[in-house]
């Protein structure tokens, strides 16, 4: 339905796009299942219409907005981005969406807003692991520093592969931060709060020594239990060497300045 959407200036046309079937059938969606095969079927019972997003916290104009109204205000673009999971697999996905920053501006952030907290949907009747209170604390929460959230690479996606976002991929609205590990790109967003203090994200709370707040893709900072030096692109065949992981997932030119005085080993 969005085949005519213009391409973003950040869209990387030279990349080989991962086959859509792979992106749709290999999902980490811990509210639904802990494996990657089941979310595509389990997600179908999620209710996503109507959908509203609450924007609050350190803003001049807090409020709850219907997704249609948000979309009417925003210009959709296609963003072909690399996506790197913390589990060392990766893909290239053509997302359809708009800049998170553009949405935040409509709520007029106050100068006291230093961080952004995003919260996922809580639908225990449709989400087995929420129902059982399994593993993480629900609902899923993620966070960004305000400059990361306002960065033009950071988008909210409503579609992929020229079509509406599949439920297992985070429909109807998900975050995509291409230079960070995939778990930062929170799915099914219902609430966006601007805060003075950093929020504690779900994985960070679960295992603080393994999953940091920043979670920037970095081949030189291994996960405590596995290397992040290389990655396996989805769909790549046998006897194909792994891909060398790039600092900031290859978006260093655009984002490295955000972290220029920081020790990336400490702020992992």
């Amino acid at each position, binding site marked *: 339905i969005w085949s005519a959407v213009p391409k973003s200036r950040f869209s990387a046309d030279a990349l080989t796009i991962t086959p859509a079937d792979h992106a749709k059938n*290999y999902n980490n969606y811990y509210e639904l299942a802990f494996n*990657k095969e089941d979310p595509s079927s389990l997600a179908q019972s999620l209710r996503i219409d109507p959908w509203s997003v609450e924007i609050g916290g350190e803003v001049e104009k807090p409020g709850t907005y219907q997704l249609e109204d948000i979309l009417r205000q925003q210009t959709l673009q296609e963003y072909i981005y690399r996506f790197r999971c913390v*589990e060392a697999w990766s893909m290239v996905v053509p997302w359809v969406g708009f800049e998170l920053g553009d949405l935040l501006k409509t709520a007029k952030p106050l100068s006291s807003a230093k961080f952004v907290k995003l919260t996922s949907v809580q639908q225990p009747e449709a989400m087995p692991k929420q129902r059982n209170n399994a593993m993480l604390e629900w609902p899923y929460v993620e966070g960004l520093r305000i400059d990361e959230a306002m960065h033009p690479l950071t988008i909210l996606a409503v579609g992929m592969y020229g079509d509406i976002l599949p439920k297992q991929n985070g429909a109807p609205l998900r975050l995509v931060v291409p230079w960070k590990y995939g778990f930062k790109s929170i799915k099914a967003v219902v609430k966006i709060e601007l805060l003075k203090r950093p929020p504690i994200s779900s994985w960070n709370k679960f295992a603080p020594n393994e999953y940091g707040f920043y979670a920037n893709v970095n081949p030189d900072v291994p996960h405590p239990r*596995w290397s992040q*030096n290389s990655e396996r692109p989805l769909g790549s065949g*046998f006897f194909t060497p792994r891909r060398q992981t790039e600092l900031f997932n290859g978006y260093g030119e655009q984002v490295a300045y955000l972290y220029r005085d920081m020790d990336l080993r400490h702020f992992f």
Partner: protein
Amino acid sequence: MAMQINNLRSLTIAVCFIPLLWVFFDIAFDNLGPNQMQALHIRLGDWALRFLWITLAITPVQTVTKWRGMTDYRQLFGLFAFFYASLHVLAYLAVDQVFAWRIIGIDILESSYIWFGLIAYIIIFSLGITSSKAAKKSLGKSWKKLHRFIYIAAGAAMIHYFWQLKGNLAEPLFYLLIIFMLLGFRAVIWFKNKQLSQMMIPKGRASIDTEAD
């Protein structure tokens, strides 16, 4: 009778190759999913672990059923654990990393879960190459000592499994439960034997052979 036993042995060997055929089938029909390399690692690793567990189950089964002559099968299953573990390692080196030694070096150095896999494999390799009757004879008493390392291998393999997961623990917990049962059985036997031999000390002989290993 001998004929029958030989048939059973051949049949067992054939059955033990089924998981490998199944892997080939899934490769040929593209059934391994979007991350087929990962799927292959898990598949071969799982079978290595299962055969290791079966190997460790032989002694308890023998003790309970009092069915002698299963030692040959213990060796057979142990060799299949060795076989699938070797394929698991080979798939990593040749099919996944395509012998890119620099990247392999970094990967091993930075991945603690691989260290445990490596420990487990070195042990299983050592047991595999010393499994023959000839080796048993020439190693004498140290053979038994060496082959007791299978418990270390089982523990290391278990950590190797747990350590690469982000969250889903249901399956490894199942394997953990089994190994606890298998080791628990041995602990009980060992304890009983100890009590027995203590009772027999007054007679001046403590020669109960601990078959439970």
